[in-house]
């Protein structure tokens, strides 16, 4: 999975794509996920980190992370999704 490395994410959750000029806001967990994607972590690795941090079951976390990644794809912030 390739997240555009140029994407700027601030601590406040402001996401800026310098290629398109578009900007978005995400919540703190969204920031965490984007940072982990930038570190080239797989979805499984991201799920495991979030399970360790938040009080939620794997099914819920997996669904929420997948939904979020699909949104990133929709907005062309991720080029493709091939990691498990």
């Amino acid at each position: 999975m390739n997240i555009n490395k140029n994407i700027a994410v601030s601590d406040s959750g402001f996401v800026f794509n310098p290629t398109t000029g578009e900007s978005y806001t995400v919540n703190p967990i969204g920031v965490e996920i984007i940072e982990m994607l930038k570190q080239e972590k797989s979805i499984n690795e991201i799920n495991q980190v979030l399970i360790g941090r938040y009080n939620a079951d794997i099914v819920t976390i997996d669904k929420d992370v997948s939904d979020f990644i699909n949104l990133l794809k929709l907005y062309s912030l991720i080029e493709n999704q091939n990691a498990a």
Partner: protein
Amino acid sequence: MRPKIKIGVTGLNAIDNPGPGVAVIRGLLEASSFEASIIGLAYESLEPGIYMHDIVDRTYQIPYPTSGTDLLLERLTYIHEKESLDVIIPNFDAELFSFIKLEPKLKKMGINMFMPTLDQFEERLKVNLPKFGKKYNINVPKSESIYSVADFRKHKDDFEWPIVVKGKHYDAKIAYNKDQLQTHFNKISAKWGLPIIIQEFKHGSEFNVTGVGDGNGNTLSAVPMRKQYITEIGKAWGGIAITDSKLLDLTHHFIKETKWRGAFELELMKNKDGKFYLLEINPRIPAWVYLAVGVGQNIPELIVNLALGNEVEPITTFKAGKMFIRYSWEMIVDIEEFEKISTTGEL
């Protein structure tokens, strides 16, 4: 020590459909390679730039392009005698033809410009855009020139509603049906003449690129911008510099293939598949050029140096993520100033 350069600038109409003059002047005053002194060249006595004495030293009225090049040359000769202009930067679409025609004569007088050639100017006219796209392998929306609404009947099977109705120099409105086409046709043709261009409507986001070509196919400057805030008449009131490589490649391709000489603005639409369509080429500096200056590419400065035959280096980088946000501002002006420019044509 920086040389002092006296520069005539048109397009001082910093209004809701702004001319580029004031933004061009701001760039010139920030130039590092020379010290600019600005002579405003205005058509109307209410162009705001006339009264901006902190950036414009003196303003002269010049005749409308419809008066012909002889009258313009006569007036410019008078202004040159008084001011000794080094360079003129024309900024209005409607006047560019006259200035391009006068370029050799002005050069002899010592007034320098760096303009597109007449062929380049005519080839990119809105009426010639389909041919232009084909020749240079650039995607353009389907368009046709019409001289009456009845003419549209011949092309109606080639278009789907809505369509864009455009004047040959300015103005573009969207028509969703034949009645609206008639209304827009009448309004735009009354103001800008015939033909009217009807263009396929492309859904998507609007992008612009401004830059400079050296006339030999090389890019000296290129800054892409995404419109963020668009007024009712389609003008960018806010925009952001972006780094889209497809846009920059398209710009380099345009400059290389046309051997573009001078400043330009490309107006583009990106559809949902990420494909860019070239809607218009403006053969001049755009009103939002101060964004380019603000991100590190001083296009007005480049144009002056090119006009003077100075050596220039291509500017290849800029700071993406910088935005411009326009605002309106009231100046308080003494009636005597308005009287002076209205009666003597000078201020």
